[in-house]
């Protein structure tokens, strides 16, 4: 699994590094020819709904669910500020019979950059290769149930209650993906996200197994994929 993660990281890194350089070289060439074309600052907004999140219960043995949408603004056909809002939760029982449950809203704020430059003499297109950043946050409550301490030597058991614990978690995401206009003003596309937790867990504390919007809290880093459909206004 580590090998796979390394492969994805390298691929994503190459996408993020090489494509902008190539785009920049092409851009320098185009700028000489098209510097007289005026681009509007505001070019409309697109509302997206995530489709992968609807199918996410299939990937995590139905222990988690997440629904999210986004609104993204087109500035200069280059910068795409985005606000994502979602609702996610988990209801999990481990092999040790310990239960975890939570559900809450989450939000992300960020910006995407269009890395695809128009080729010389190419047809005008709204298709994009995007890369960007997000800052995510969720304020939520969670419960860990059926935590039992068993003393095999002396005998006896004790239940440890961790109910309704309130916490706020923040994370940042590196995002890369594509958007394609499949019909007039209707866009589809996918993005891959590397999520990194900014709020650290307390050692020995009852830390959440799942963070709405971030996913399963198995370390400080997480991967996710979004597949969206959107309408441009």
């Amino acid at each position, binding site marked *: *699994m580590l090998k*796979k*993660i390394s492969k*994805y990281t390298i691929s994503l890194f190459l996408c993020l590094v090489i494509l902008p350089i190539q785009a920049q070289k092409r851009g320098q060439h185009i700028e000489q020819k098209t510097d007289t074309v005026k681009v509007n600052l505001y070019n409309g907004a697109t509302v997206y709904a995530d489709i*992968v999140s609807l199918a996410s219960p299939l*990937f*995590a043995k139905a222990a988690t669910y997440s629904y999210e949408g986004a609104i993204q603004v087109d500035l200069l056909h280059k910068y795409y500020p985005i606000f994502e809002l979602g609702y996610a939760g988990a209801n*999990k029982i*481990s*092999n*040790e019979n*310990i239960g*975890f449950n939570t559900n809450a809203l989450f939000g992300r704020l960020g910006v995407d950059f269009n890395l695809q430059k128009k080729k010389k003499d190419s047809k005008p297109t709204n*298709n994009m290769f995007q890369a960007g950043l997000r800052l995510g946050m969720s304020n939520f409550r969670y419960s*860990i149930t059926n*935590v*039992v*301490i*068993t*003393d095999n*030597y*002396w*005998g*006896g*058991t*004790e239940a*440890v209650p*961790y109910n309704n614990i309130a916490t706020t978690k923040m994370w940042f995401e590196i995002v890369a993906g*594509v958007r*394609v206009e*499949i019909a007039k003003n209707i866009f*589809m*596309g*996918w993005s*891959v996200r590397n999520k990194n937790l900014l709020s650290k867990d307390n*050692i*020995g*504390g*009852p*830390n959440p*197994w799942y963070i709405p919007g971030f996913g*399963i809290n*198995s370390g400080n880093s997480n*991967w996710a*994929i979004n*597949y969206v459909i959107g309408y441009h206004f």
Partner: protein
Amino acid sequence: MTNKHLVNIILLFSLIFTSSCSNDEQCRKDRYIRTTAGIYTVSYNPTTKIRTTTLLSPDSISVQGFGVDSITDYKKKSTILFPLNKITNESDFRVRFNEIVDTVKILHTNYNAYLSLECGCLVTHSIDTVISTNHFIDSVRISVHDVNTSTSAKENIKIYN
């Protein structure tokens, strides 16, 4: 980029991610906790006026918790283990050194440390007081109060003969 290419890319990424998101749900954290006691003898040389402490290995030692059926036997060992009670704050042991029996009472504070859904909860201790009868044992001293995963290689109690 055509729509056909887009569909192919989406399918590829879906495959990659569904195959890489498996979780084996095994506990891989260190959960080993033990309270260790070393047995020592002190000899005093009146001419040099030097007191020397050396490890002592009695022929046989047996440790039994009060109210516990199982007895742990040690042969020619200078280190023994006292499994502390995870539920209450007092652990009483009957310790037999060869044929001499002593009672060791350990008063401790328990701390619950939650690890994860896979590992559950771990109980660590802090030893407050150790009291013993004085048949074989001359005195006892706490050398390391904390009993947790990072102190499992350390000696918590010194028993002097």
